[in-house]
């Protein structure tokens, strides 16, 4: 791994943390997942094609790691979900701000969506992956990306009362 790769990786850490949280919805698991993804990315830096964007490559490593982890934990008992425990969320000190409230609404609505819908919304609308990149990350055809994403967008807009 050269210094340029390292800096590119560092610059994307916030993106990795967001995606990890979106996948795991638990802060501790998200931290582990980011750590694991970074280690794998460093170990495999040589296999990243510099002509390709780094983000989707990293997201795919993370997603595969998450799937493995989930497989292993399937019998590890019920995992608590931070979104099922409102008191575990930080109290918003300035609830009067409409933007903050809307953001909170968006977070809540996202949390209530089916994980499959939440994931694709996150990749495209939060992380700004293209449809083609998303298809590669999720291992699905681009047509499936579009139909799934479109349904997810409509489901979200319904929850948020967007008409």
């Amino acid at each position, binding site marked *: *791994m*050269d*210094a340029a*790769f*390292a800096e590119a*990786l*560092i610059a994307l*850490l*916030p993106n990795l*943390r967001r995606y990890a949280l979106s996948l795991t919805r638990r802060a*501790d698991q998200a*931290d*582990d997942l*980011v*750590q*694991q993804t*970074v*280690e*794998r990315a*460093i*170990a*495999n*830096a*040589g*296999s*990243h*094609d510099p002509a*390709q964007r780094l983000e989707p*490559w990293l997201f*795919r*490593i993370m997603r*595969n*790691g998450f799937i*493995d982890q989930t497989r*292993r934990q399937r019998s590890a008992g019920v995992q608590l979900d931070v979104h099922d425990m409102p008191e575990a969320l930080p109290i918003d000190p300035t609830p009067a701000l409409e933007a903050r409230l*809307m*953001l909170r609404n*968006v*977070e809540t609505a*996202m949390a209530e969506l089916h994980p499959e819908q939440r994931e694709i*919304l*996150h990749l495209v*609308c*939060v*992380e*700004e992956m*293209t*449809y083609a990149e998303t298809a590669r990350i999720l291992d699905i055809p*681009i047509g499936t990306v*579009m*139909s799934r*994403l*479109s349904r997810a*967008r*409509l489901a*979200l*807009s319904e929850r*948020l009362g*967007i*008409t």
Partner: protein
Amino acid sequence: MSGGTYTAGDGGKDGPMQIDDETLMALADGELDPARAEELRRAIAADPELQSRLHRFQETRRLLSGLRADPKGEDPLAAMIRRSATAAPTRIVPSPTASHAAGPRPVLPSGGTPLTAPARAPRRPANLNRRPWLAAAASAAIVAIGLGWWEWADAPAPRDFSPAELAALDALPSGQVQASDDGGELAMIASFRGLDGALCREYETAQRAVLACREAAGWTLRHAAVPEAAGQDYRPASGQGSMDDAIAAIGATAPLTPEEEAAALRE
């Protein structure tokens, strides 16, 4: 971001009502080629219903982009990554934040003490102890295996046993490490008795984790898994199931004690 040039929709027939949700979404997401996008915008400008449908896609995207918050300060992992860039190319650097923090190798106790887990039914012994060793060992394996860009093919595992592996199976006490043929190392994990009385042994190299049983014809491979990446875990090289399953399948109950193992190896 600059999208692809996906050309969705119905081509020639541009009656306003023929524009489907996915096409409107692709427009909102900048995924249409410029000509098609322009054509659509003209149709939408003349149709309030299309405007309202497009609005839902634009608005969901705008709101979700709000979740892309700016980071506060530098990420705790940044320093670790920079250190890695100056270290050996494929070195895995332990971090204090890792739940599986890797330490320097080797950590397997020497002296022939099997790494026995507390008496539990078939169970991988030394599960906690092996990880740090793996983290280091796997860094070598990763170079060989590599990960294609979009291609995460399983690495082919060697089919049989190398001479060093056979020698280890015959004599290396559990808990000990020996040099393997490729310059890496082989760690003997534990020995078991199968239901049929056969001696079975579990070991790991940088390339794979193996369960082998001694039969009339010699050592037989019962299970082999290759590290998927960065020493996090092993994945079966073929077929389904984990090492735990493989150990359960031979009917083993608990790892042999050092005495039992030594006696079995003399057989």
